[in-house]
């Protein structure tokens, strides 16, 4: 589908003496899934933080089409259509599931403070329309029965899906998923995979970061592999899978992973 790419060019980030990300370049195209994998500490989550504005890179740039995202605040980047999820799926505690999704739709509200204070009719109209969309979204994610529940009472799996629903509510063009499959059981993983494919089919560009290597391989159209902050392989998933450097980097991690599962 059409739309600009999200392009990272030579991103570098140091924390004290430690190099977290070094000279990273990759691109996410709309209507595709780009996988980002690598052993623990490879710099994957940092990358998401760098793209979404929570961390400032020391060098390099992030661009979405013509817009330079590098120095923008997180909310502005979200406003441009680049949205992210968090590794620790955080509920907006104290708000109901329904309200959580409404916060996801925050950017759709156009009424100003004055209009709200004077309770102009347009405000209520807008609220109703957005509330309708929120209801639909909850239905689509199967969260409708939980709508009035305080989000902090959800199970881990439910929370993960709420987070994704909430992020999709912000109608992103590019979606950065930070370890979405972590902690989910097999049924939930399958649901998640179907959801992600659905996003791709609707023209969203997805950057999928996860530890579950088979999960990522199964879904992605392109792939980048990181280790110690640098890119060690990139391109077609099948090529990457056969790359000896990648196997080397993962030998220890895979053995650990197999022992764990």
């Amino acid at each position, binding site marked *: 589908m059409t739309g600009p790419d999200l392009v990272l060019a030579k991103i570098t980030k140091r924390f004290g003496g430690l190099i977290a990300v070094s000279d990273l370049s990759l691109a996410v195209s709309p209507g595709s899934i780009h996988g980002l994998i690598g052993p623990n500490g490879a710099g994957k989550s940092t990358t998401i933080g760098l793209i979404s504005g929570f961390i400032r890179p020391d060098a390099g740039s992030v661009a979405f089409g013509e817009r330079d995202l590098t120095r923008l605040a997180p909310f502005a980047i979200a406003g441009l259509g680049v949205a992210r999820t968090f590794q620790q799926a*955080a509920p907006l505690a104290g708000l109901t599931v329904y309200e959580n999704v409404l916060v996801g739709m*925050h950017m759709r509200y156009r009424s100003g403070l004055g209009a709200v204070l004077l309770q102009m009719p347009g405000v209520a109209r807008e609220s109703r329309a957005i509330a309708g969309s929120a209801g639909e979204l909850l239905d689509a994610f199967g969260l409708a029965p939980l709508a009035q529940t305080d989000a902090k009472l959800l199970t881990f799996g439910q929370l993960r899906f709420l987070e994704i629903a909430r992020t999709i509510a912000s109608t992103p063009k590019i979606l950065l998923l930070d370890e979405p499959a972590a902690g989910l059981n097999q049924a939930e993983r399958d649901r998640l995979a179907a959801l992600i494919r659905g996003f791709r089919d609707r023209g969203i560009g997805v950057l999928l970061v996860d530890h579950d290597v088979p999960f990522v391989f199964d879904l992605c159209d392109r792939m980048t592999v990181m280790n110690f902050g640098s890119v060690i392989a990139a391109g077609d998933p099948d090529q990457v899978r056969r790359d000896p450097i990648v196997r080397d980097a993962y030998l220890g991690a895979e053995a650990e992973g197999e022992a764990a599962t």
Partner: protein
Amino acid sequence: MSEPIRRKLERAGLVAILAVVVAVAIGGSRLAVYNFTIIALQAMVVISLNLLLGLAGQVSFAQTTFMAVGGYGSAVLTLRLGLNPWLALFISAFMSLAVALVVGRPLLRLRGHYLAMATFALALGTYSFVGAATPLTNGSIGISGVPPLALGSLSLDSPLSFYVLSWIACGLTMLVYAVIANSYIGRAMRAVATGQDVAAALGVNVTAYKGLAFAIAAVIASLAGSLYVEFTSFVGPDLYDIGMVVNVFLMLFIGGRGSNVGPILGAALLTMAPQYLAGLEQFQNLVFFVFLLVLILVWPAGIFGPVRN
């Protein structure tokens, strides 16, 4: 208690408050009218803190700073520059807005403890400043003889007229709180309070919303401060000492956050209680504060606190 029950209680509470306010207006004694005027003005400040802390989650001890800008602003502008008291009221509110925007910028970047302490420092610093800046504020003596507000040719200096004015102001404040709390703006503030990063990732301009809450709270506190000084015709540093800083907080926490009933309840309790303790004379203050200490200990959420805590 569950949410629907709570909402019923809240509605009942608001009706009860209205009934009491009307009853006092019609048949209340001079003392009752006086007390309830004070309660209305205190409640305004507590509601402003409810918006800033209860809704947006920003722990600020600095509401007294804006009360002082309103109070001293009204006094100085009317007495020294001869301005109309209403004009002075609004100019002071505007000055508070300016201070809030300037001071808020660096302070609201702080979180948790830092913000609490910085705003506490601002509040106590304000107290020190108005006590020391004698050329402007008349130092620790204060300024007396502040002229009352007037509505056309009607001078609003009768107790009843000020009572009505104060409760109208309080009512408007409650309305502002309710309207904001129930809108997407209030929801965004709650999101900032409970998950700042998540909110930012969803497109909420966190800095702007914190600043907005801070600014609105400042303006409300300033108006309350001005009205109070107009009411008593006097302003002095002791109005804004550590006791008052603590008082505003205690009123909010004892009354309960999250609705308009709590602040009024808290304001009423903490305004009336010292009078019931008056019999204890010199022990009055001590007993009062010990009572509050224990109350918060037992009940950190407050009487009419939020459902979840």
